[in-house]
């Protein structure tokens, strides 16, 4: 009998300590959401490298009593890396090492398309404030339109950390949906004649220009907007590794091993913010809708500025490259290429679209820095 009693007490104790006692319908819903995201990542191949760890983090975030964010351990370390702005600049280091700034240097006038595409950020900001979000929350929501995950996380942590889960998920989801969201907007605002413009071959860019530009850019932007110095600095450092010609090992590590490791941590940590308690509310839905508006607004802004450049240049600029101004390197540039080729096979816009694409990354960081200076 004593054995039986001990057995019953032990089982009751295990049950009382188990996650089942704290498990809610909300947790179940979020675990299903995580499974759907996994399916999208693996079966539909929507940005699987990002979506898979986000989805699994979402599932893990909905196990009660894990103590992930209270007890020291890997989960707390990942959370620390996100909330203390460690991972976003490291991602930028890899992005810089992977990105060719040559097209931007060869045709600097395309940089303004990257500026124009930031309009989506502020359309969404205004919309968020009309819906009742305070100005800091609205700025964090608006930055989704920059289509730049690390910058969105960086700004949100500083201005509205309680919205991190919804904003990060919206930003990365829309980045993975760029090939679906952008083409209808690009077609809506351009004529057939504009879409068929073949742009001139870009001039070669010397090694001197490739090395001096990142250094000058870092100095100018860091002095002007110190809050984003770590983002811009790491982006440009990564690019210097790539272009110097004598730091191949550092470049290789930045654009392969390091960015892959940091992506695992950043994406899993982002998913870990998707607990039912923080995620299942009306605000999340509003953020996701506002993020879509920001994305569409940014694409339209870039295309419209492309049209202005088309008129000013006498028809030498294809407005389709303007949509790449929303960042999302290099996906948005590839969308310009694909849409351009649909209307004129043999038209190669990829190189030209990389100019506004890189400018979009810098422009989003500048917009984030300006909002931090104004609002924090």
């Amino acid at each position, binding site marked *: 009998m004593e054995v039986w009693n001990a057995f019953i007490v032990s089982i009751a104790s295990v049950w009382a300590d188990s996650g089942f006692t704290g498990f809610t319908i909300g947790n179940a819903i979020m675990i299903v959401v995580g499974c759907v995201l996994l399916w999208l990542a693996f079966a539909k191949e929507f940005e699987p490298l990002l979506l898979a760890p986000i989805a699994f983090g979402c599932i893990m975030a909905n196990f009660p009593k894990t103590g992930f964010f209270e007890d020291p351990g890997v989960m707390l370390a990942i959370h620390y890396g996100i909330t203390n702005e460690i991972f976003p600049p490291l991602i930028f280091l890899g992005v810089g090492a992977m990105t060719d700034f040559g097209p931007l240097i060869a045709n600097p006038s395309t940089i303004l398309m*990257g*500026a*124009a595409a*930031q309009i989506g950020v*502020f359309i969404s*900001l205004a919309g968020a404030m009309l819906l009742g979000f305070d100005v800091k929350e609205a700025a964090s929501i608006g930055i989704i339109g920059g289509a730049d995950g690390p910058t969105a996380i960086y700004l949100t942590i500083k201005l509205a950390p309680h919205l991190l889960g919804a904003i990060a998920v919206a930003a990365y989801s829309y980045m993975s949906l760029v090939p679906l969201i952008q083409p209808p907007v690009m077609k809506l605002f351009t004529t057939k004649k504009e879409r068929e413009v073949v742009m001139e071959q870009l001039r070669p860019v010397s090694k001197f220009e490739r090395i001096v*530009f990142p250094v000058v850019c870092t100095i*100018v932007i860091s002095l002007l907007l110190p809050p984003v110095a770590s983002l811009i600095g790491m982006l440009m450092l990564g690019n210097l590794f790539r272009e110097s010609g004598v730091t191949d090992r550092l470049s290789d590590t930045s654009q392969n091993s390091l960015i892959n490791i940091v992506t695992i941590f950043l994406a899993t940590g982002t998913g870990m913010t998707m607990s039912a308690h923080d995620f299942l509310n009306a605000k999340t839905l509003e953020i996701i809708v506002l993020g879509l508006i920001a994305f569409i607004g940014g694409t339209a802004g870039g295309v419209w500025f492309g049209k202005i450049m088309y008129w000013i240049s006498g028809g030498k600029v294809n407005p389709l490259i303007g949509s790449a101004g929303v960042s999302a390197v290099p996906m948005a540039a590839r969308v310009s290429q694909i849409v351009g080729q649909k209307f004129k096979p043999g038209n*190669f816009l990829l190189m030209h679209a990389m100019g506004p694409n890189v400018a979009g990354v810098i422009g989003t960081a500048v917009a984030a820095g*300006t909002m931090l200076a104004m609002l924090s």
Partner: protein
Amino acid sequence: MGHPVTTNPFIIMLINMTVVFVVLYGLSLLIRLIHVIDPTKNAEEHAEAAAVPAAMPAAPVVDNSAVVAVIAAAVAAYGCSEANIVTIRPAGSPVWTNTGRLSGIQNTVN
């Protein structure tokens, strides 16, 4: 954290878009300035000019007749005669052009 400078969304939009445009336009001017002061610019142009004559004599040595015959047959398969072929020359292959071609081929295949 301090207080926001303003909470009017339209003023925030105006100020931010102005700053973004001014900063990026400033960067575009700096890019042009870097190009103007680039001390290696002339040296690279001379190097390219010098490299072209050196490569010229090597061209006739290569026998491309088989390649030309294959291309002519492929063109003929599309209904053109050999008389329509004016010239066959190797295409320049910068990295970006190749990337664009590969992307186009993949889109066609997929």
